[in-house]
Each structure stands twice: as structure tokens, then as C-alpha cells.
């Protein structure tokens, strides 16, 4: 099997290199496939480019000098105009069954920065689709990527690797927010502060259908940028109490040294209009923006960064416990893929052997029938069928041995022996 993968991922290299080697646009990818095929016309290739990895899967059914680390690395270097020596040592390489196992691990998110994250399957599928669109897939890469998708499905359904959320914002919204509210579409979200964490949380809330967003921030510029992104509105810092009273969801990420919202301030704000309306508060400030005592009020669900972090850690540990099970599935699927591959590889030899033997039997039968011209047509048919059965029975043991050998690994030795013994060229 001539399959190679060169990889530059979050474990082997820094973001600075990964950014430079990434295929960032659809045009980039299309040009990469064109240039690769101009250089290596007989090779199959799939480029997988995400924020955490840039990988090149190259394959050829025949021995091909294109599919070696040096050539793949040079291609990346020349395509992106990044000197080879700047990243050569950060590239990892896998070949043959190891390359298959690597892809299966990648697609099952075992190689991801966040174990069990679901996006990688879609990213691998997209990479495969683009390669196919660009005419870059062949028998081997089709089988390889279809096997990868099958493996990721098995890992997802047979293990709990994707259970539980592991980012603070997703835990807050997914584990707690969705247990408080049935829908977020009619909820008013008030964001206090406009930092990165606020933006990440808003992204999750937007995915849940949030439509009304108010950003309250001391710096109006940053608030406007964030509000514009999520089609929200900006309110002055002086109006904070008014919005505290109206909010269903509050996301707070100020960098204040002491609580911005004290118990008295919160109670006063809520008592004016929405005393008993449930409110979900995500306090991502460190130190906290909300007085911890507020959590003791009825219908107030307050989560600070520490409690959310603990939940993330617990979920991460639960996922870690599933890694062994996922690896077992990947090993099984790798063996299955290799066995099917070797079986297909031996197919050509098997066909030639069968064709040769049947051809010889036909030649001998013609000679026999020319001598026994008085034989009726039914007798001739009966003789032909008998001889065909004899040939098939004689072929059965070697073909069975070849199939068995394929299950254990490459049957190259046996194929070579068959070719030499029966002069199959």
C-alpha cells in the first residue's frame, strides 16, 4: 500500500506555522489540487485544513515517488512560499496502516485539541467532498475516507466520547440554560462587558435562537462591535439597572475588581418589574461581577466561572475514560480496512489466474471436440460444465489461502509466489 500522510497539527507545531500552511479559501484549495496534479498526475490526494491541523493524504496504488514525505513537504513549502526548513521538523509522517489509523483517530476526534469535539467529522467530510469535486480521489482515497466516516459513526454511537460539554460557554448554555428555558427565541439577553468570553457565550446563545441582545459596556466602541455582530443594541452603562430588571439571561464579563452587581442593587432592579421572572446569570468575571449571595434568591440561577470550570473538568475526565474503547474500535476498523484493501489488491492476480486456467481448459476442449465431432450438443455442454467445475475446484484452495493471508496483513509473498508459479504477468 502506498499511502502517506504528512501532518502539521496543534501537537507538533505552533499556530504561527499552521496559519501559514493553511488552505484558507476555496480558491486556495482548488489551486492546490490543480498544482498537485500537474506535478504528480497519477496520485490521489486529499488536503485537510482546519484551525488545528494541515494534513496531506496522498495515495497511489502503484509505487510512486510523489508519495513520499520529502515531496509532500516540498509541495507545501512551494505552494505557501514558506521555506521548508521553517517547518520541516514540525511535520509528522505516517505511512501505510499507520496513516489509516491516524485518519481514523483524527476523524474520531481523538487527535483534537478538545477530545470528543463534533466539528472534526464535518471538516473531514468537507475535505473529502472538495477533493472529490476536484477529481483528486481514486479507489484508495474513496475507500479510506468512507472508512473514516464509518469509524467516526461507530465511535460516536458505541462510546460516550462526545458526552458532556467541555467549554465554559457551552456548559453554561447547554447544561444549565436549556434546563431553565424551553426556548431562547423570546428571551432578552443582556451582556455586561464585551470581552472574548462574552462573544463566545453569545455565539452559543445565538445558536439557540436568541434574538434580543443588549450590550452594556463602559467602552461604547467595543460594545457596538459586539452588538453589530449579533444584531443587538448598545445601552449606556448608566442604564444597567434598567436592563438588569428586564433581562432573562445575563452574561457578565467585566474586568472589575469587585462585584459590579451587589445583592441590594440586584433586588432593587428586579423588584421594579420582574421580581419573580426566572433569570439565568452567567458570571464569567474573575473576580466575580455578581455578589454570590444573589444565587440564593428564588428563580435566580447564577453560575460563576469556577463552577462552570469544574463542570468542564468533570466532563473532560468522563470523556478521557472512553478513549480506550474508542481506540479499540479504531484498531478494528483499521484492520478491516487493511484486510479489504489487500483483498482488492490480490483481485487482479486472482482474475488473471482464473482467466488463464479457463482459457487453457477451453483450448483443450476445442481440440477434443474437433476429434469427437459426432458428439451431440448436449454432451458437449455437459463436458464443458464438468471441466469448468474441475477448474473452479482446483482454483478454490489457492484463492482461499490468499483470502486468509489478507486478513493477517499484506499477502505480497503469496501473490508473488502465485505470479511466479503460474507465470502470471
Amino acid at each position: 500500500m502506498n499511502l502517506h500522510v504528512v501532518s502539521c497539527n496543534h501537537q507538533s507545531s505552533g499556530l504561527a506555522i499552521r496559519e501559514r500552511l493553511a488552505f484558507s479559501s476555496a480558491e486556495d484549495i482548488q489551486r492546490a489540487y490543480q498544482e498537485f496534479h500537474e506535478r504528480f498526475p497519477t496520485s490521489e490526494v486529499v488536503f485537510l485544513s482546519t484551525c488545528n491541523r494541515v494534513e496531506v493524504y496522498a495515495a497511489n496504488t502503484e509505487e510512486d515517488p510523489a508519495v513520499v514525505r520529502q515531496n509532500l513537504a516540498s509541495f507545501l513549502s512551494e505552494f505557501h512560499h514558506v521555506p521548508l526548513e521553517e517547518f520541516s521538523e514540525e511535520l509528522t509522517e505516517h505511512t501505510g496502516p499507520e496513516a489509516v489509523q491516524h485518519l481514523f483517530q483524527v476523524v474520531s476526534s481523538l487527535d483534537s485539541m478538545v477530545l470528543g469535539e463534533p466539528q472534526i467529522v464535518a471538516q473531514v467530510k468537507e475535505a473529502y467532498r472538495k477533493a472529490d469535486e476536484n477529481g483528486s480521489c481514486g479507489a484508495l482515497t474513496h475507500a479510506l475516507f468512507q472508512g473514516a466516516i464509518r469509524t467516526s459513526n461507530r465511535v460516536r454511537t458505541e462510546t460516550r466520547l462526545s458526552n458532556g460539554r467541555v467549554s465554559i460557554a457551552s456548559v453554561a448554555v447547554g447544561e444549565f440554560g436549556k434546563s431553565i428555558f424551553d426556548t431562547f427565541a423570546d428571551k432578552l439577553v443582556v451582556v455586561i462587558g464585551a470581552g472574548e468570553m462574552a462573544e463566545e457565550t453569545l455565539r452559543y446563545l445565538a445558536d439557540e435562537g436568541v434574538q434580543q441582545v443588549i450590550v452594556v459596556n463602559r467602552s461604547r466602541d467595543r460594545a457596538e462591535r459586539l452588538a453589530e455582530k449579533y444584531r443587538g443594541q448598545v445601552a449606556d452603562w448608566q442604564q444597567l439597572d434598567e436592563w438588569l430588571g428586564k433581562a432573562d439571561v445575563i452574561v457578565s464579563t467585566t474586568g472589575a475588581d469587585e462585584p459590579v452587581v451587589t445583592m441590594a442593587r440586584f433586588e432593587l432592579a428586579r423588584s421594579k418589574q420582574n421580581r419573580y421572572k426566572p433569570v439565568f446569570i452567567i458570571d464569567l468575571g474573575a473576580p466575580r461581577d455578581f455578589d454570590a449571595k444573589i444565587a440564593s434568591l428564588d428563580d435566580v440561577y447564577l453560575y460563576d466561572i469556577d463552577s462552570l470550570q469544574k463542570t468542564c473538568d468533570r466532563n473532560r475526565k468522563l470523556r478521557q475514560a472512553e478513549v480506550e474503547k474508542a481506540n479499540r474500535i479504531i484498531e478494528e476498523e483499521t484492520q478491516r480496512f487493511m484486510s479489504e484493501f489487500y483483498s482488492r489488491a490480490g483481485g487482479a492476480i486472482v482474475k488473471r489466474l482464473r482467466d488463464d486456467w479457463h482459457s487453457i481448459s477451453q483450448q483443450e476442449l476445442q481440440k477434443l471436440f474437433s476429434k469427437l465431432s459426432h458428439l451431440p450438443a448436449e454432451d458437449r455442454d455437459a463436458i464443458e460444465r464438468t471441466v469448468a467445475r474441475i477448474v473452479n475446484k482446483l482454483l478454490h484452495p489457492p484463492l482461499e489461502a490468499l483470502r486468509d493471508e489478507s486478513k493477517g496483513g499484506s499477502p505480497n509473498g503469496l501473490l508473488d509466489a502465485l505470479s511466479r508459479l503460474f507465470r502470471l504477468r
Partner: protein
Amino acid sequence: MLNVSVFCIFASYLVAFGFELTRLRGQGWLARTLTLGFATAGLLAHTLYLLARASAENLPPLLSSSHDWLLVLAWLLMVLYLVLTIVDSQLAVGIISFPLIIGLVATSWLLPETSARSWDPLRSWAMLHASSLVLGTAAVLVGFVISLLFLWQNERLKQGAIAKRSLSLPSLEQLARLNLWAISTAVPLLSVGVLSGIILTNWTSENVWIDPVVLGGTIGWALICGLLTWQLSRTRTPGRKVAVATAWSSGLLLLAYVGLQVLTSAAGVSSVHGAKPVKVAPQAVTLPTKSANEEGQK
């Protein structure tokens, strides 16, 4: 011949509850199948028992006795549990419903199996009274289960605990809405039950207001009406307080309808709902099978 007793029903539900409890530690498909299997078997026995009782007493189970009325109530809750579990197998409704259903089945043992009176002349009114009360009480008990689920979910959220995958709880918003629906359904049904009861007593010319079961039941009905009025009169009501109030009102109504019947029966106090002496273990009822019918015909 098939022998079905209240014990069969009780035991099946108890075993199903035992398997249901394993969900607290994460449930596998086997335990889930066994829970559903025993619950279904129990419901089948329950149905056959009620049919046999109706046939033996020549009256619908709702009218034949308080014992049967209570078993009909438990049957309704069991059907609801099974439907919900089939729709969403992860829903944590069984943990709370099973003790309630098992409690109702066990209590039916303590109630008289025969009615103290004949309803023949007023059968339609009696049927309306009994059926609206059983449906109304079932709605109140659904509200009770929903309230406990609300308090469970509320506690989990307040503690910041992760939800178990094998035990899914609806959102607080959904539970609050369902609670309001349950109580809104219960109030008209119970009102029809109470009013038809008053009309019945006028015809029978009895002073039922000294009957502890009638008096307690009417107070329970008034409580549920008050609860609904309280919920509807405020645009925003604290969710936890509503759940606590519903749980208490439902508990009191159950105590009034069931507990007082048990007490009056045990004490031998006269009641329009039957005051026969307590029977510790009802006899198994015998269901005629096809072969038995054929033998009878011969």
C-alpha cells in the same frame, strides 16, 4: 382459568420500580426493557382485574366500590406513565410516578370492595360524579408529579449539578407551563365532581356535610381552586413557590380523598362512599377463559 389479585399488580409495579431506580446510577437497555416489561405486565393484570371486578359486581369499576375507584385512578396514572416513557425513554417521570401508583394500589387493599349503596336509580349522576372526580384527581396527581420534577430540576440547577443522561428532566419553563395546564384541567373536572355530588345528596336526602370524606374532599377541591386562582391572578409567580404550593395542595387533596376513606373505613364511621369493615387482603378474582365458557355451555 386466570387468577389476578391486587398483589399481582402491586408486585409487578414494585419490581418495575426497582429496575427504574437503577436509572439513578445510569441505566442500561436491559434494565430499561425490564422496567417497561414489568410495568406493562402489571398494567395488563390491572386491566384484567378491573374488567373482572366490573363483571363480578355488574357495575362499572368507578361505581362498584372505593377500592375499585382507587384502582381506576392508579390505572390512569400507569397508562400516562407508559405513554410518556414510550415517547421519551430518558424522561425521569417513573422515579416519582411509581411510588404514587404503588401507594394507590396498596391503599386500595384497605378500602371496602363493595359499595354501601345501590346506585341504580341515579346511575348516570353517580357515574358523572365518580368519573369527573377520578379524572380531576388524576390531573391533580399529574400536577403533583410535575411539581416534584420542577423542584428536582430547580435543586439540580441551584447546585450546578450535571444532568444524568439516563434521567432527563424537562426545562423549568416547560414544567411550570405543564403544571398550570394540569391544575387548569383538574379544577373544572373536580368542580363537576363536587357539584354532581351535591345534586346526588339532594336526591338521596342525606346530610353528607358531616361525612368526613365529603367534607375533606370539598376542602381539597377549594384548595386546588384557590391555587389556580392564585396562579392566574399574577402575571409572574415564583416558580419554586408554585411547585411547593401545588405539591402541598395535591397532597392534601389525595389525603382527603384517599386517607379519609381509609380512616373512616378503619374506624367504622358511616360514609356515603362505603363504610364496610376493612378487608386486609381481597380475594383473587377469577377470569373466565374460553374453555371455561365452553364447559359452562355444555
